């Protein structure tokens, strides 16, 4: 279902960017110009929402990622094997080339003991140790979601587990896909770009410009209400939610044109404010998510 807003041809082109990139990458893999990259999905301290979001992907969908685009080596959520064999499978990849996708935060408290990913050769492996060992040897690192990118909700004040993003524990470039969760298109498009051309053009916080260049406010379908000063006073209204605390003006992401879950809807389409989940600083810097006080003061 395409809801409420027709797209202009340019915008339509933009949200199909991932599909086009992926089909070109696949063409080249099929023509043996390129090989399927190994993909290791390392889950750290978080909610697994990014794995779930990837499974919600459409064109390309998750099955395509799993069976056609990559050699999917490891995922705590999906691996058939368990225990020692699972850990062997994870660490045996070291020495080969692989893209490391990380979801969840690195917990540093008590030297990483707040998050154990498994037992390898009898020893507890912390998320911190796994992030460093696998991160330093990967061809590329992609942090998927806020927790992996800078700590996100896992690092929310007072940050009880001393969580942070993987870029704080490995000494190298991390491509950051912020968002809570990360949209499947942002991840699959980035992987396709890596296969075709290597590292995509990034903004000054290492996010791919093709997804993160423009604020929600700049492309918001409710922009005319803002410009005319027509503001919603409660949720469920079809006007501008700036006064309810909308973070669209500071959040650089393509939600207004891409939307979610097969392009059917998005938070502003659901008559709620953007809470800035794709911007660094979420959640602490984006609070309160919803406020009625701004209007009351007037």
């Amino acid at each position, binding site marked *: 279902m395409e809801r409420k807003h027709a797209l202009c041809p340019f915008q339509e082109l933009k949200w199909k960017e991932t599909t086009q990139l992926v089909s070109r990458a696949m063409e080249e893999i099929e023509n043996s110009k390129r090989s399927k990259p190994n993909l290791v999905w390392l889950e750290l301290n978080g909610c697994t929402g990014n794995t779930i979001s990837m499974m919600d992907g459409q064109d390309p969908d998750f099955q395509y990622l799993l069976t056609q685009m990559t050699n*999917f080596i490891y995922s705590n959520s999906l691996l058939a094997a*368990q225990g020692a064999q699972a850990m062997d499978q994870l660490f045996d990849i070291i020495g080969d080339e692989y893209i490391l996708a990380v979801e969840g935060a690195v*917990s540093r408290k008590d030297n990483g003991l707040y998050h154990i*990913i498994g037992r390898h050769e009898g020893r507890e492996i912390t998320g911190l140790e796994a992030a460093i060992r696998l991160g330093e040897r990967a061809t590329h690192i992609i942090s998927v979601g806020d927790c992996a990118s800078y700590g996100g909700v*896992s690092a929310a004040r007072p940050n009880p587990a001393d969580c942070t993003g993987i870029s704080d524990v490995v000494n190298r470039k991390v491509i950051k896909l912020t968002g809570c969760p990360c949209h499947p298109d942002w991840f699959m498009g980035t992987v396709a770009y890596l296969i075709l051309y290597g590292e995509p053009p990034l903004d000054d916080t290492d996010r791919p410009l093709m997804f993160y260049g423009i604020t929600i406010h700049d492309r918001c379908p409710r922009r005319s209400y803002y410009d005319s000063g027509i503001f919603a006073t409660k949720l469920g209204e079809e006007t501008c939610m700036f006064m309810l605390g909308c973070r669209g003006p500071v959040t650089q992401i393509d939600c207004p044109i891409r939307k979610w879950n097969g392009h059917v*809807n998005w938070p502003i389409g659901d008559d709620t404010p953007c809470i800035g989940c794709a911007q660094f600083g979420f959640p602490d810097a984006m609070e309160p998510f919803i406020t009625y006080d701004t209007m009351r003061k007037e």
Partner: protein
Amino acid sequence: MAETIVINPVTRINGFMEIVAEIGKNTVTDARTKGMMFRGFEKMLTGRGPLDAVYFTQRICGICSTAHSMAASLALEEALGIVPSEQGRYLRDLLHACEFLQNHLRHLYQYTLPDYVKLPEGYPLFKTDHNDYRLPAEVNERMVNDYFESLEYSKNAHKMLAILGGKAPHNHGVFIGGITSPITVDMIIAIKSILFGIEKFITEKMLPDVYEIAAYYSEYYHFGGGYGNLLTYGCFQHYKELGTLYVDPYIYTNEQYSHFDPDLITQSDEYAWFNEANDPDREKPEAYSWIRAPRYNGVPFEVGPLARQWLSGEYRHGISVMDRTIARVLEAKKITQIMNTLLENLIPGVTMQQEYEVPTQAYGRGLIDTTRGALGHWLSIEDKKILFYQIITPSAWNLSTQTGEKKGTAEQALMGAPVKDQNMPVEIGRIIRSFDPCVSCATHVVIPGKMDKIIQVV
């Protein structure tokens, strides 16, 4: 002679878990389930704006985020003195039902199936660590197809959720008063159309698949039951005109049914990594997990689809690994029926939202059954901020640590189970996965303060 088996990680669950089991004479003689991750949401919530809890607590869990938005909204409604309209309740429950379908589909196919069905080993993810595969080749092949085909329908369950709630995971729709956006006729027909496809898949594929697995692994009807204590807070229930569409709050213990009393919930941290000040402490002697120990009337209980199917009278075949797995699928079918009823009773265009004022001081409790079972949020507000927030999740009930000599629910389910080959303890994973564990949900701390009045802490 007893031998110790350690499984870590237990894959195909949500979050991180270790199981330590003692095996003597091919039988589990002792077992511990350990939650291996901790973030501390209750500590983070203290001092935040109360309304933000609806979106914030969803980040506890990516596969059941809607559950937390439900419990948080219910707790806030009590604190703010808001009674949602029936239309608001229908829509919110409809949104919640989408999550049940997403979850149950993924649990059966992506999390459970690889225990019984040999997936194509050409893919590294599907390399196996045991050889107890019993399905004939053509049945196995059909189920491999269903593994992949199911992805379309679990994704579509989230698509329905997004139509009602903006996006999934971590929706924006569930809120105080119902959902945020009024429903329109085009949304209703879109949901009906998607639901039609999901229902067809459940009836034609999912139900036959689970019964076929059960036929080839029939001894799994005979172990993994545990205490047989069942509990539900109720869900899809107590509508003014529609009555109860699924299950009311009930408990079942010692083969007796009784009404549920929320004041009998307690929580202990005797064997959890928390010290006397309730701060996390990985060095605590005797402790072995981040998961505390919720009890009802001092006793461990099982929560989830089997508890609900049993307590609603829908399915009372037995309490075991296979019954738990079948109950989840039967529940998926039941949920589609409930959704159809709710859809038939929607009135388009009804607004549910108002401007809410956060009280200076208030207390609220939100108890509801969610995909994995009974979920509770308790909060108190002071100076218009959260003073205290407590979460007891379904997986905390099912994966709790022991209290005294009394084992947690899943630990007890492992006791006495057969393990044919200690080098391939496939039985243990199958038992644990039948509970659909979610460890990212289960690990929580208690904030010192006024909680004694809210939940008695042992």
